[in-house]
Each structure stands twice: as structure tokens, then as C-alpha cells.
């Protein structure tokens, strides 16, 4: 009789253990730990390719050239500009300067202002301050 009770107890114990183990297989394993094979999209996006433009020919010398100075209006550019012009003038006395103040942000006539700068200049030095 005692042996029979022990067998029942053992069976109940094993069954309970099996049920707990089975439940854990489905619920205790976290979603994050479950391996799977999936496909995903590469979200980076292909780069926009602007039309290729040849690089401008470099000036052989700055002597006697018309140098457009592009000030993009960021603070710092205007502080640096006078010293740069002074140094250039000392090194190349026949150099000619004209400064264009063209803000760095988008505004309606910006493209035309840049074209005017390019049309006047043999070369351009841009000052991108901050």
C-alpha cells in the first residue's frame, strides 16, 4: 500500500515537472533569444549622383588675377577675411579682390549670386566660418 502511494506520488511529481518544463519551453524562452532566419531591407538608400563636372583648371599664379572672395556670412569668416586679404595683397601686389556676401542658407536669388561671382572671378576663395 505504502509502495503504491509512493508510485502515485512519483508519477504526480514527474508529471508536474514535465508540465513545468514544457511550459517553460514556450513561455520562459524570451522572444529576444529566439533565433530565426528572416529577410530585411537594407534601408540606407542609394546615393544621389550629381552630374559629373570636371574640376576647374588651377591658376598657375595669383599675380594679377581677379580673386572673388565668398563670405558665407557665418561668424568667424568675417573676422578671418581682413587678415587673409592683407596677406594676399602683401604677397601678390597686383591681385584684385571683390567680396561677395552670399549667405549659406537657401534663398531665392542664391544661384544668380553664385553665377555672378563665378563670372567675375579668375579664382574663388570661399570662407566657411562658424
Amino acid at each position, binding site marked *: 500500500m505504502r509502495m503504491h502511494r509512493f508510485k502515485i506520488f512519483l508519477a504526480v511529481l514527474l508529471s508536474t515537472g514535465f508540465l513545468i518544463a514544457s511550459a517553460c519551453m514556450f513561455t520562459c524562452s524570451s522572444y529576444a533569444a529566439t533565433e530565426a532566419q*528572416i529577410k530585411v531591407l537594407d534601408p*540606407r538608400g542609394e546615393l544621389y549622383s550629381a552630374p559629373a563636372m570636371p574640376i576647374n583648371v588651377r591658376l598657375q599664379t595669383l599675380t594679377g588675377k581677379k580673386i572673388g572672395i565668398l563670405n558665407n556670412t557665418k561668424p568667424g569668416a568675417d573676422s578671418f577675411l581682413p587678415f587673409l586679404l592683407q596677406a594676399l595683397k602683401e604677397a601678390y601686389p597686383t591681385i584684385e579682390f571683390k567680396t561677395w556676401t552670399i549667405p549659406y542658407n537657401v534663398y531665392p536669388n542664391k544661384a544668380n549670386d553664385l553665377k555672378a561671382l563665378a563670372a567675375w572671378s579668375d*579664382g574663388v576663395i570661399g570662407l566657411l566660418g562658424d
Partner: protein
Amino acid sequence: MAFVEVPHPMGMISLPEIRAKADAAFPKIVQMATQWKPAGTAVQKITPPYPAERIKFRGTYEALNKMFYDKGWSISLPVIPPTPEAVAAMLKGTTRKPGEVVWAVPPRMGQLTVELVAAYGVMAGCKPEHMPLLLAIVKAISDDNYDWRGNSTTTAPTNPIIIINGPILDELGIAYSTGDMGGEMPVNISLGYFINLVGDIIGGSIPPDVDKSTQGSRGDLVALVFGENEKLNPWKQSYAVEHGFKPTDNVVTAFSAYLGTNNTDHTSVKGKDLLNTMAVGAAGVASGITSCLSRYDVPFSWQNSVKYMFFFLGPEHADTIYKDFPTKLSVEEYLVKKTALPLWGYSPSQCTLPKEFGPYDENTMIPRFTKPVQIHIVVTGGPGKQSQIWPPFPTGTRPVSVIVEK
């Protein structure tokens, strides 16, 4: 193009220090102007932007997110995997062709197709019915007047802000009442996360290159998206209607903001008194870069900077103001007059007063604005005595409003 880099800083240093920097840089500038040649003539491989490449991955969700992060395909928070099935389901929310390029996102100039809008929508937790709204948001923030390039690369802490008007608010469950600008509103947050995923991954604006934000802001992670509480707007004229749209239009308004401030006036009974305390807050935000007597119709310059301001009025504050100011225009006119700083509060060189201004000294109060059109009023949020005031990123930006096309 050839560059010579002059070490930071250039501002807030003495003239002899600037001179020394100019002298040090000079030989290199001359060399670049006369001798520089490109290092090579690499031909860039052109790949069509559609369809996006499909990648096979085996591993856990955690490992997938790590892979996304390591590849620069996500930012600081986990994403929902953009599987082809999930993206196809999102695409059912629009009639636009998946291969259509809707934006080359600066500064990286990655091409954002409709398919990738859907992919980012999935990643951010959006639903297919959000697709028209996502496309409208993209249209607004890609507008030149938003200046995405500037605000995503600047040293300043900028925040994309999206305000939504129209029946779509209730249709999609976009929050516009209690806590709507906070973090517990799933639709608003998903829409905001979408914006930053697009900007950072396709646009490539990650610090330190090329997002140069000195300190950054939490707006770099989840943009601020919320609706106007049109039902509790005492003027019965929503922001969108005030700006020319119909009450039945679904409208997205976007602007790039500097960090805002809060008004917690619990005691003013009169509208005038409440607007006075709001004007104090508005006068102080974006300090150091604001100009006096700014003009909306004149291009940006450092002497015409921070040209407008948004006031997000809590409904109770709006009610208090409405009692004494029955039109929005009257509110705007009052705030133009009262939003002022003493001359000493403006950064030197950013407040040059015209002769017709008359006599002044450093303590003279100088208004920041000149026209009512510079004041933007939106009623949003739930009960409480709170409002927020947000200045714009101060370049040539303007708020951009577009209709959500279904």
C-alpha cells in the same frame, strides 16, 4: 574642391589670435589655389535606388538589432525589422509607386524612395494607414524653407517639430490632449522616430560627422509630433485654417526648432497679464543668436535672425487669453510689442538700431519682432496651466504646411 581647415574656434577670440591663424593657414591657401590636383578620378558606381537590397539574416531579434546598429541602419533605440512582407503591407497604405524617389536626403544625399518610406515606417512602428501622413511629413521637411541640410549639420541643438491639423487626428489616434508632446503617445512617437531614422540613416547626420551638434538634443532621436487641440481652441480657428487651409483639410506643418521653454503661469487672471509672462519667455529663448526688430520678409542674416516664434498654448491658457483677446491677430500684435529684450541682452552686432528708432541706451527695451505674421499660435494639450514657446532654427527657415494627400 580643395579645402584648408583652420582649427576651431574662430569666434570669441582676439584679433591677434585670428591673425596668427590666418598667417599659419596662408601658405596652404596659396598652395590649394595654385597647385592642388584631385587625388584620383574615381567613377562612382550608380545603383538604381529601387528596389532596396534584401539581406538574409539568421539570429535573434537582439542580434538583428545589433547588426542594424553596427551597420548604421538604426540609431539608439531598437527597430522593428523591415521584412519584405511588413514593407509590402505598409505600401498598401498608399497609391504612390514604390520606386518613386521622394527626396535625396542631405547631407549624405541618400535617395528616399516610397518603398524606403514604408521600410522606415515599419522600423519606427507605424501602420499602413500612416503612409499618406509619412509622405506628407517628408514633403514638408524636404522643402527648402525647412532647411534640412542646415539644421541636421549645425552645431546647434535642433528639433524637428511637426504639428498636425484636421480630421486625421481622430482617425489615426494622433494625440493632441493631455501629454501629447510627451513620450507616451505611440502614434506620435512612431511618427517622430520615423523622421529621425530617415534623417540619420539615409541623410547621414550622425555626430560627430556630419552632425556637428555641440551638445545635441533629444530631438535628435524622436522628433516632436503632435496635433492641435482644435476642439478646445477658443478662437475656433485652427493653425491650419489661419494659414489658408479648410477645416476639413488634413495638414502637416513642419519647422525646425531650437530648444523651447515653458510658461507655468497659474495666477494671471487677465489675458494681458498672461501674455506678459509669455513674452518674457519668448524674449529669452534662442539667446545669443536673436536679432532685434527682425523682419519676416527680409532674407536671413546675422542682423535678421530668429524671425518667428511658435506659442503652443495649453487650452486653459488659451481660454484666459481669449477673454481679453478675441482674435488671434490681437494676440499676435500684443506679443510683437511685448516680446522685447534690453539692448544689452542682444549679442553685440546683432542689434543695429535704425536712426528712426530714436534715442536709446543699453537698458532700452527693443522688440524682437516687427509684424504679427511672425507669431504662430497653436492650441494643444489638456487641462493645466502650461504652455510652451519654441523658437526656430535661425537661418532662412519658415514653417512649411502641406496637405496630407490620401
